[in-house]
């Protein structure tokens, strides 16, 4: 049984068809990649899954539940966490506070108990902190724990954003270009982490990525998109060799033939 399934999803912005009849099935426990040239609709697909956009047609279900019935702030409570292509962290807060916000879906205290900070609220805070510390350990963020986001380098921010998504203990992790703007070493770290997330934590990953090296090293299956349409699905090597993918990236070879 697939964890996330999209069937015949279409989204139009005015006359532009951003996503055209796309169907995909993400199986429990796999790393699924989305590739395609700029403007292919990869991030739009992400925004559809996290319910920032409403599809014109089609259905999206997660864990046998209809996601389209939920608002964008209810999606995380189902166990879906995401990162953004252009880092969206809370700039005027520390790394620790950012990661703690990721725990928001596990909030069990009411407004009143928080105002009086009852023993229960303190207990909950310790519990959240413990979960966050596990993420800090996993991603080696210890030196940055108390630092403000506003002063951190880009590479670290990228990791903090991954950490914030992990802190929510998701079932499905949506990574929007996890390696964009990272150095070679940082990309390698990211590859190891994604592997660990899949194998140790048992979290299913759906990611958009341009770096084909990273895609072929971590992804089990890949879906190639172009102009909002599905080109092909398969293993990374199959997809890379597929003629329509080569065409989408490099153009047609039609000129010499005519």
């Amino acid at each position: 049984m697939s964890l996330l399934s999209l069937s015949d999803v279409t989204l139009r912005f005015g006359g532009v068809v951003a996503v055209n009849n796309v169907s995909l099935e993400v199986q429990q426990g796999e790393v699924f990649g989305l590739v395609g040239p700029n403007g292919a609709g990869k991030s739009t697909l992400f925004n559809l899954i996290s319910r920032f956009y409403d599809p014109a047609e089609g259905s999206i279900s997660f864990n046998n539940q209809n996601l389209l019935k939920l608002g964008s702030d209810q999606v995380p409570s189902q166990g879906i966490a995401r990162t953004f292509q252009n880092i969206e962290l809370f700039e005027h807060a520390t790394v620790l506070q950012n990661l703690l916000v990721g725990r928001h879906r596990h909030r069990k205290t009411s407004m009143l108990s928080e105002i009086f900070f009852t023993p229960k609220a303190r207990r909950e805070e310790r519990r959240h902190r413990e979960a966050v510390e596990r993420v800090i350990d996993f991603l080696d963020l210890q030196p940055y724990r108390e630092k403000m986001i506003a002063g951190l380098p880009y590479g670290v921010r990228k990791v903090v954003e991954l950490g914030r998504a992990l802190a929510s203990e998701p079932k499905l992790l949506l990574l929007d270009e996890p390696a964009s703007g990272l150095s070679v070493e940082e990309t390698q770290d990211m590859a190891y982490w994604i592997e660990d997330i899949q194998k140790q934590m048992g979290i299913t990953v759906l990611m958009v990525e341009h770096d084909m090296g990273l895609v072929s090293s971590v992804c089990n299956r890949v879906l190639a998109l172009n102009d909002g349409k599905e080109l092909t699905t398969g293993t990374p090597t199959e997809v890379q060799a597929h003629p329509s993918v080569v065409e989408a990236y490099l153009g047609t070879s039609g000129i010499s033939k005519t």
Partner: protein
Amino acid sequence: MRFVFKTSYDADINWFKHKTQAFWYFLLFGLMMAIPLYFHFLSDPYLLGEITSVMIFAIAAMGLMLLTGHTGLPSLGHATFMALGCYMNVIYLNAGLPWLLAFPLAGLTAGFVGTLIALPVLRLHGVYLALATLAMSILTGDFIVLLEPWTGGISGLAVPDISIFGLEINKYANPYLFYYLVLVVALLIIMAYRNILRAPMGRSFTAVRDSEISAQAMGINLTMTKSSSFFLSATTAGLAGALFGHSAGYVTNETFDVVMSITLLMMIVIGGLGFIHGAFFGAIVFGIIPVAIANGRSLLQTSFGINVHIPGLENGLFAVILIAFILFEPMGLYGRWLKVRTYFELFPFYRKDMFRRQKSYLKTERVQ
């Protein structure tokens, strides 16, 4: 430089980071408790009254700070909630409720009405939200006139004395007790404020302030968060308004005007947006300047024989100070204090750019 050796998660949850910090705050508290003694020996409680009203404004500024400084929603209409709290307090008192019940009820009423007003207004962002709340502030006086049977309209309303279990408190007859009352209320609100900031609710407020889109992606309900911030903020402003009524003794439709709303906003900007301390620093600045101008004026007159009577001098001075702060110290007085403290803590390793605001990375793919 101090290194705090943390041995449990509680070190980051507690109110005070370390014992020395706790010591300074308790010292400050002791000082605040002792201030009336000084004025008692002086037998001139005029300045004590000034300190009391600074604290009342600091409470109102804390209300606005929660909304503007921590949730990022600018409001130019907080005098409206002060008016609501003030009038509701008097109405409850006149209906025969004891003060201990009427006072919190007045705050809660201001909070609920504030939330009702806020719900449609909260769909607006930034400047538009500021304009809508400004309109609300302008309408306040008219509404007070329209609701004459309850508010006394233009002729005004006398605020009854506070009575707690038979203990009568009046600002003029008993300034010391009134001071302590305001101090206790301020302290309780500070404690609640600190608790909110260290709990998930406070974090969701700052999350909404810094990035609405990723707050949503973390499961934070924007409408719920914004309206609970508005509720808490209006409640606090309402409590401050009720205290202000007791301090003024008599309120009319002109008491809570637009200028008061704008003053509150200026207070938190000058004091430092996003810090509880900022509310107090701002209120102190706005309390000191009129006194300083009056003193300077009489000094010039008595020692040099110069008569200074420039109309609008105060407002002009405030404007200059505000512009100077926005240009040179956007973090406000508390931000300046943080920089000075960091300089000495890290001496001689302080770098000039340590607090420089970074330009955030391009946000081209914003979904909104």
